[in-house]
């Protein structure tokens, strides 16, 4: 192998070693990475040429020049000094870490509750066992998500990843996008992420009243219902119970006010009665003794089966949309929060 080739090979090996040690965020920026490695190579050739006193450098000079560069680990370490240490995750990565945990947990809760709702609607479903499985699944999912996400963020912190690097990864070189972002910056933040306290109070009270009424079942004396819809009282009692639980959650939300984390918690809890609602809706289709028999008796010529089936499908979709709406509110609260309240101290400071 010629001297020149040997030198080139050595430099390439050095560059490869540096590249291996570099943090992920730099490796993902292909142009910058190449540019950086080329710059190191130029430096080595400059140094080697100087060591060779202006003549063609040989392998000994190149080796010496590489030595003066510092080890690949030392070079890569300079890129890893980004970020302020805070436990094992850098301070800069805590907000995306929190957000990822919240989104993952809400998603796991949603999937488990939705599955529970559908299982509960099946004929002969064992409620206790299904609910138990759903909660077990939810907590196991939480545990996996927390461990997994934490490990990822610890690793990202170790590599000196900063939140802006996430943006760079997804950044499309499109000026339109830039303009949209600028526009968004200029647009004042809309703060009405969740309904007002009054609205929640109203929903809470309505939940108590309607749920109480259904729970008491004041239609017991109607012979027709007892004869043709024998499962209706039990079904209505469950609906009433779910309404009361929803009412308690809404009432709590009204009392909590503008506390982001607690609002997010109760919005998540709100998904649970919604799933029971879905299960109860599906029961209307699966259990003919709730309403179908009665309606067939009342309207013998109508296609009651199809009408109820279609209505159940429509309301089930609306129910799932409602659940997704709650998830959207949780996400919006995380991204936008509430309008910060000016403290007495800040007011006094601003007045001066």
């Amino acid at each position: 192998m010629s001297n020149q080739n040997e030198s080139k090979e050595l430099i390439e090996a050095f560059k490869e070693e540096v590249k291996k040690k570099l943090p992920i965020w730099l490796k993902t920026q292909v142009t910058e990475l190449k540019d950086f490695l080329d710059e190191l190579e130029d430096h080595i050739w400059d140094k080697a040429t100087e060591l060779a006193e202006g003549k063609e450098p040989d392998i000994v000079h190149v080796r010496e020049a590489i030595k003066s560069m510092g080890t690949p680990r030392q070079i890569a370490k300079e890129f890893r000094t980004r970020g302020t240490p805070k436990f094992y995750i850098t301070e800069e990565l805590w907000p995306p870490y929190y957000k990822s945990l919240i989104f993952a947990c809400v998603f796991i809760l949603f999937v488990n509750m939705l599955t529970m709702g559908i299982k509960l609607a099946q004929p002969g479903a064992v409620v206790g066992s299904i609910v138990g499985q759903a909660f077990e699944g939810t907590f196991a999912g939480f545990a996996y998500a927390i461990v997994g996400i934490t490990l990822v963020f610890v690793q990202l912190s170790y590599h000196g990843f900063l939140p802006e690097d996430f943006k760079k990864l997804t950044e499309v070189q499109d000026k339109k996008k830039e303009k949209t972002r600028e526009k968004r910056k200029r647009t004042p933040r809309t703060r009405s992420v969740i309904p007002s306290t009054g609205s929640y109070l109203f929903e809470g009270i309505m939940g108590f009243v309607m749920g109480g009424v259904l729970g008491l079942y004041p239609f017991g004396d109607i012979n027709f219902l007892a004869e043709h819809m024998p499962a209706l009282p039990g079904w209505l009692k469950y609906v009433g119970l779910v309404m009361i639980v929803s009412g308690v959650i809404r009432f709590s939300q009204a009392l909590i006010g503008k506390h982001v984390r607690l609002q997010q918690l109760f919005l998540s809890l709100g998904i649970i009665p919604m799933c029971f609602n879905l299960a109860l809706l599906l029961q209307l289709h699966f259990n003919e003794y709730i309403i179908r028999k009665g309606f067939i008796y009342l309207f013998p010529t109508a296609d009651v089966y199809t009408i109820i089936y279609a209505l159940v499908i429509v309301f089930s979709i609306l129910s799932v949309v409602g659940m997704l709406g709650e998830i959207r509110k949780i996400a919006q609260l995380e991204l936008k929060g509430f309008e910060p309240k000016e403290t007495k101290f800040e007011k006094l400071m601003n007045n001066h």
Partner: protein
Amino acid sequence: MFRNIKTYRPEALIESERFRSYVESFESELLRGISTISALAIIQRHPQEGVYGYQLLKELEQETQRTLVIEEGTLYPILRKLERDGLLISEKKESSGRPRKYYKLTEEGNKLYHHMMGFFSKLLEAIAPLMEIEIKLPEKKYVYCPNCANKIPQSEDIRFCNICGLNIEGLAK
């Protein structure tokens, strides 16, 4: 500082792994900021054509009589960080048959450089008595902003500090 010494006498304190790593980590922490300021000082001397990495290191070595020694490869991450932070801009130019990356200070970088220099100079002046050394700042040539220590040339007719906005009229001698 100890990088040129291969072996130490056994009784030397630095032979102890514990103390050597302490000294090394202390030096590297202290040098991090100083290397940045010194690199900026060299770059600032080349406002038109800029300076490339190897040239910068050579000038730094000469100016500091080889006292401030940066591991050569570690200079480039520093330069890239400064570029990402908007203090430097770079341009690729051919020189001696090789494409080189020339670094120049941006307008903001120039302002921040003067602030960093002023802050560091005032800091040295303040701690000088603790170290039993004397530091004489060129106060005939520069005004140091009393609020942020920004270093402002006396020759420039500046009424407000371009870093913190303090009214410095009347401070010039």
